[in-house]
């Protein structure tokens, strides 16, 4: 089936400034919202001109009825252009793209490990498990690493779900002082590894360490990756990640991912 691309323009219904360069933008699109799954991303043309030229790949933070949202930090000209969009404006969005997380059995335990703006896919997945899969929220531990108190607004949406949440910060201004991987190790000690799954998204160094920890304890682990993504649909071969099987094998983040089993990839 062909996805109609003649009019892929979607309306922005809000663009909220969360402070410290963080923004949450919501869009209305019946077609995109109805097909979205946790972990999917959308490819947004942030400018109608030639600079920035490429679409920006954004993981979806949540979807509700015919709307969906993204959450990002302004880092370059693409995210700056996104942050400047206003309610009522229309943008060209292709999606949903990419794969989704494996759904756990109802009696399994989930540990979500988010680093900074790696929050969206894990927020979406957690809420989806609870609201659409009737998953017991007490079986989800949400571990969230931020750089400092300044990013604490990121935590709002996770707190709203009402699941067990632990925070770490680099400077100790909120929660545990240190890495979120410290919290992961503590959480694993309390868990039955045979019935526990870890899902994570965040900086590459963090994901590398999480994959290592999970491999050591033989815990099933899925990570959501990002990469420079010119096409977003698997043709340009630009956004690849190295396969763990061979130095000579790569996987396309946009097509085979962005969710990978930790054992599949070498970061």
């Amino acid at each position, binding site marked *: *089936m*062909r*996805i109609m*691309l*003649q009019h892929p323009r979607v309306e922005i219904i809000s663009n909220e400034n969360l402070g410290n360069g963080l923004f949450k933008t919501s869009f209305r699109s019946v077609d995109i919202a109805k097909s979205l799954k946790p972990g999917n991303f959308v490819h947004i*043309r942030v400018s109608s001109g*030639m*600079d*920035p*030229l*490429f*679409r920006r790949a954004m993981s979806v933070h949540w979807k509700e009825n015919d709307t969906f949202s993204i959450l990002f930090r302004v880092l370059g000209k693409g995210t700056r252009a996104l942050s400047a969009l206003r309610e009522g404006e229309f943008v*060209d969005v*292709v999606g949903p793209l990419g794969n989704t997380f494996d759904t756990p059995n109802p009696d399994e335990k989930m540990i979500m490990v988010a680093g900074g703006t790696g929050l969206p896919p894990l927020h979406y997945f957690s809420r989806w498990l609870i609201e659409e899969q009737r998953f017991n929220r007490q079986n989800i531990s949400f571990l969230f690493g931020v750089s400092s108190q300044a990013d604490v607004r990121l935590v709002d949406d996770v707190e709203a779900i009402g699941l067990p949440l632990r925070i770490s910060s680099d400077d100790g201004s909120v929660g545990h002082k240190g890495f979120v991987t410290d919290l992961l190790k503590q959480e694993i000690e309390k868990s039955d590894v045979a019935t526990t799954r870890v899902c994570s998204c965040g900086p590459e160094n963090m994901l590398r360490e999480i994959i290592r920890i999970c491999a050591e304890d033989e815990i099933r682990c899925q990570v959501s990756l990002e*990469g*420079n993504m*010119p*096409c*977003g*649909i*698997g*043709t*340009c*071969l*630009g*956004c*690849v*990640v*190295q396969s763990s099987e*061979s130095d*000579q*094998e*790569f996987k396309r983040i946009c*097509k085979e991912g962005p969710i990978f089993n930790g054992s599949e990839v070498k970061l």
Partner: protein
Amino acid sequence: MTASGTFGYGEEFNEYIDLSKLGGIVTKSVTLNPRPGHKPPRTCETTGGMLNAIGLANVGIDRFIEEKIPFLKTLDTNVIVNVAGFSLDEYVQVVRRLNDCDGIAMLEINISCPNVGAGGLEFSGSESSAHKLTKAVKETSRFPIIIKLSPNVTDIAAIASACEDAGADALSVINTLVGMAIDHYSFKPRLTNITGGLSGPAIKPVALACVMKVSKRVNIPIIGIGGIMDHFDVAEFFIAGSTGVQFGTANFINPNATIETIDGLRKYLLDVNISSITDLIGRLEI
């Protein structure tokens, strides 16, 4: 047409657009042996363009014939297979294998990939090497041959002329320009391969000049490539001397760019009161 390396083997775009509306699709380069490609990062956005150093990642000719040709044969458009190699013998071997395949309209010979060490640019760098390779490929192939030229040379028209003399049926002008991007905080290049091929709207003026120069020297058809985004760009390439065009980077920004251009061109031709696009070819007024 869609340019090599920007359209895969048509499979992905088949979900998005009606490929039968295209003049043809040019496949990702195929080489004799499978190639994993370079380590990431392989791409980087620049002002009005992109750098890529994919490294001719492809499945190799055996799997190409086994896995890709059956799908390509089902497409209701002209399939142009792009061939790359690291020695003259490799090009000839790949072309010989393709001779046994059905469903191919033409071959485009990539003698200008800027992102691989051996081969690639080496063949488009001098008139004698371009001539030798074109002749060998032409003598082997049962399909018409398009030679894809590099702008990274002193005199592209001289190379074009050598290809024409050696029997090339058409020329694709141009491949990407060698470029680089640097992270000013880490002092490191943004691509693992250090340099990459620059494409996108940023290179359109270079491509137009190359098409004009080549069109003055050769009588075979020229397929213009380089930063084409819409029907106005297409018109400019025809005016410069192209008889066909390929869309590359534009496919990433707007997967529907080629189809929208067809409609746009119709309107443009009415505006300028020209009945057929062929009447635009080489109409540059100096």
